[in-house]
Structure formats: C-alpha cells, structure tokens
C-alpha cells in the first residue's frame, strides 16, 4: 500500500455503524452485483445532515442519484465505527469507493473488519485532524512514510504505522494472509 490520493470527506466523533449503513438497508445481498450497489448509494446516509461533510455539513457522501462516492478518503473524529459488528459498514465504504479512513481511534470491531476483510485501510492519526481538512480538499496518504497530506493547504500530518496488522493489510485480508502463511 504505497499511495492513496483523492478527495476527502470529513466527519465528527463517534460515527457509528448505523450512521455508516443503517440497519434497514442490510437486507440487500452483498453477492449480487445488482443489489450490492445499494450499499454504495446509502453509505454514510445515516449521518445527521448538518454533520455530513464538515465543516459546512449537508454534503451527501454519495449523491442521491449515484451509487459511488466522489470521495476516496474519509477523515473522522475519534471512535470511528462504533456500534454494531456489521461488516456491511466497511464493505459499504469500499463499495462506495473509499480506500482509506483516518481517525485518532476506532471501535475495534470496525477496525478488525476493515483489515481482515481487506475492505479499506483504517489509519490511526496521532491527533484529531478534522479541523485540518475540509470536505472536497485533495488529499494524499503515503503508506510508506505514514503521512497524510492536505494537497489543498500543503500541510502534512503523521499517521501511526500499521504495526501488527500490516501483514494482513498488505496481503489484502485474513484469508490471503492465512494462505500465504500456509494456514488454509
């Protein structure tokens, strides 16, 4: 995972899995292509409007007439992904087109799901970066140097190294990791 570049979408603290993908959308099949696109459409649609796309709010992550988001990186406040264990949460972000999320802390099940499923990379930032980025800013994450740069303002911020999970992230998920390690 060297570099990820794209537009950023900014969110506040404690974004829970009901806000990422609300429970009543979980009935769509993840295997059927014609149904799974709805996870992209409804991804992050549970966030209250005024908090959706900070600082101004009122920006949908995915336009209501689209199935993919224009944003590939999410920068959020602490405790991202709290709430239920639904893997549909990181999966819906992947389906919407997100490649990475950056938050000071994660709820552990979301973190695990994102890594083990190989859906997107959950980077931990050293501080809350939500005020350093505005939704729509161009952003680059460097997975070798462990930094995130706001190309709009030109400022860079350090990220925590992935540590123990780097092998799983690099393999692309727990199955790929286990295959490489000869476990399955």
């Amino acid at each position, binding site marked *: 995972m060297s570099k990820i570049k794209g537009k950023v979408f900014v969110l506040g603290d*404690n974004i*829970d899995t*009901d*806000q990422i993908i*609300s*429970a*009543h959308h*979980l*009935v*769509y*099949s*993840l*295997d059927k292509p014609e149904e799974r696109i709805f996870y992209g459409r409804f991804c992050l649609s*549970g966030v*209250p409007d005024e908090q959706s796309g900070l600082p101004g709010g009122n920006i949908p992550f995915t336009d209501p007439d689209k199935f993919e988001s224009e944003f590939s990186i999410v920068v959020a406040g*602490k*405790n991202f992904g*709290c*709430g*239920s*264990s*639904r*893997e*549909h949460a*990181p999966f819906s972000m992947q389906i919407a087109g997100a490649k990475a999320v950056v938050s000071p*802390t*994660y*709820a*552990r*099940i979301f973190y*695990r*799901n994102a890594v*083990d*499923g190989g859906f997107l990379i959950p980077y931990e930032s050293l501080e809350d970066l939500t005020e350093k980025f505005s939704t729509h800013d161009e952003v680059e994450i460097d997975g070798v140097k462990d930094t995130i740069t706001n190309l709009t303002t030109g400022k860079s911020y350090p990220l925590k190294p992935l540590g*123990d999970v780097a092998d799983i992230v690099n393999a692309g*998920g*727990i*199955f790929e990791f*286990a295959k490489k390690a000869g*476990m*399955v």
Partner: protein
Amino acid sequence: MTLTEKILAKASGNSKLDAGDNAWVNVDILMTHDVCGPPTIGIFKKHFGEHAKVWDKEKVVIIPDHYIFTKDKYANRNIDILREFAREQDLPHYYDVGTDRYKGVCHVAMPEEGFTRPGNVLFGTDSHTCTAGAFGQFATGIGNTDAGFILGTGKLWVKVPETMKFIFDGEIPPYIMAKDLILQIIGDIGVDGATYRAMEFAGDGVMDMDMEGRMTLTNMVIEAGGKNGIIEPDEVTFDYVRSRTDYNFEALFNDEKAQYHSVRRYKSSELLPMVAKPHSPDNKATVREVEGTPLTRAYIGSCTGGKISDFIAAAKIIKGHELKLDTYIVPATTLIREQLKTETYEGETLWDIFESRGCQMGEASCAACLGGPSDTFGRLNHEEICISTTNRNFPGRMGSKKAQVYLASPYTVAASAITGKITDPREYLSVEAGVAV
C-alpha cells in the same frame, strides 16, 4: 494473569499471555444470526469451496432473531439461506423460524440452551456477543469475514486486551437495577472509554446479582467500546450452566497478581437511577435531573432489557396503575414469552398485568431495538420520544433519525409509562422498598 488473559492463553496453547500479545485461539462456539449469517456463509463458501464442511458442526450455533416478523422479501430470503445451509451441513444447533425450535434474541437464547460456559471462547457475528462474558468466558463480536474464516478453520487471531476492573462494594439498593450500574459506568468513561479492553465487573454488589442482572452489565460493554465483558464465575454461574448442559467446562479465575489497566470502585449505596439521553449511551443523567421530560412511548425489550427479570421489575411498578404512554412489551425469547404467562406478581400473570393496561405485546425477536424494516413491531417511524430498556440510542437506531431515545432500567421505563414523562422509580417503589421519597 487476568481471567481474560488466562482463557485466551489456554485457548491458544500458551502457558502465559500478556495484554498486547497476538494469539491464534481455538474457538469453542461460533454463533451467527439472520443478518450476518448469509454473508458469512457466502464468504465461507467462496474461500473453502461450495461443498466444504464446517470445522465442527457441534460448535456452530445459528439463531435467527433480527428481522423475523416482517413481509420484507430480502429479510425473508436471509432466513431461507440459513435454513438451506443448516440442512446441507446437517447442523444440530439451528433454531428455525416458524417451528417450535424458534428462540428469539440470540444472546439470551445462548445461555438458555447451555452454549455459554465458563472458561470457553465464544465468537459471534453480533457486537453484543460480549453478553456471554457474564458466564466467566471470553466472548466478543466479530465481522462476517472473521466468522467465515472460523467456519472453515475453527481458529481466529486475537490481540489480548488489558482489563479494566469495576468493583461495586456493598448491597445494591432495591430501586437500582443492573442497567443503572452500566449506564453510570458508560457515562463515566465514555463511549470509547474501554476501546480494545476487557471490562471486568466484581464486588459483592455484582456477585449478589442473578445471571440475568450480570448479563445486563456485560451486554453493554460494547457501548463503551469494550472488547469483552467478564465476571468471575461462582456457584450462581455453575448452577445456571449445569442445569442447562452436560458439557464439561473448566472454570478459570483471576490470579492474585493479575495486572489491570485500571480499577474503579463504586459504593453501591450511592447509586442512583440513571438514563442515557439522546443520542449516545454515554450521555448520562440521573433520572432526577431529567425528571418530567415529556415522552410518547415506552419500550421494554431486547437482549439487555427483555429478560424475565426485566418484566418482573416492570410489572411490579405497573400493577395497579393506568399507563399514559403507548407501551411495547417485547420478550427476548419464546421461553420468556411463555414465562410472561406463567410468572405472577400479586396473583396476576405478568401477561395480564401488561395486557390489561393496554400494552402492545410482541413476539420474541430483536424487533424495534435496531429499527429494522418499516413494518417492524414497535419501530419509531416518526418523531417519537421513547424511553427504552434497550442498549443503543444512536440517531436512527430504533427507526427514524427524527426520533429520540432515552435508555433506562425497566423500573424507570415502567414508572415513566405511568406518568407519560421521565419519572424516578422511587415514586412507585417507596412502600415496598422501604425508602423515603
């Protein structure tokens, strides 16, 4: 080592593990339900093959409970997938909808059926799998990929968590329920206060509780971000488990020299009835602080607040009173629904107490605890202000994003149903509890 460290050490074949270590553990039980079961099965088949067999069919438990009594075609398709999988794999522990094996909410059905056992490792595709930690076991929620991996291998990697210990000294006052304790703790440490950690509950205030009260504590550790909740097993635990299964378990306990992340002590006598205000489980207030807040609905149900002891508590308060609120009664399991008809309070069955007061009586399932399809029983479809014994009040959790949810104990919910506004249960328990109001 702590109890959690010891269980994980044993399950991974290590003589010692420290917090922070990574270990591959052998899984005693994998539990899944109708929402996460179908994608888990999909992942299992994709990676292990269309005709692969699960690693051990005695260790797989499938309990549909989330979207059961709905006309939603996709939700019903999920049940069909589980049924087909259980058939082709010949799974003995599948509890099919529409049969007399149907149970209801998985976290309450698991102990009823003897699948929660001291010293064991349990993973489930539901975040409230942590409930089972009340039985002195390691239990935590995982996603579908991890569950699909376990179905094929019987193993999973875990990072060993540090343990935060919460001790309640002294007898719990009669107007306080386990829900008040856990709302107090979550309010004190915040919704991320225990992230990546184990939360252990101890002290005579906790050990005097029955298993249902203990389960209310461990159920909500996930609301503080906890990885698992745990309580050392004792005779209460052993009696409960042995009366439901012949399974041979080995109970484990904390070492005297166990290292904790932190220890917090509470004086049980100082506890007060608590609520979590909208829209977060850590948005705490004492009931007195928000007393009089107008409400439009009361809801008693879910894995954390729909057990028989929860209904007994509510019935004690409601008996002899008219209700001002629309009140929904949702037993967690079919067994509890039957018990509502046999358990009595002052000569009247709980069922009659509730029904005669105009309560809406539901079928056993998760129902409106997580919103669900729009025809779900008790769902908040508009701008309701609901007081509920459930465990989450995030925006939109019980249905509409415009609704508001207050979390509280069954006592507080019942007292509020009588007056139509948030009410301290001591108003209605004063005589029996011998407490001055």
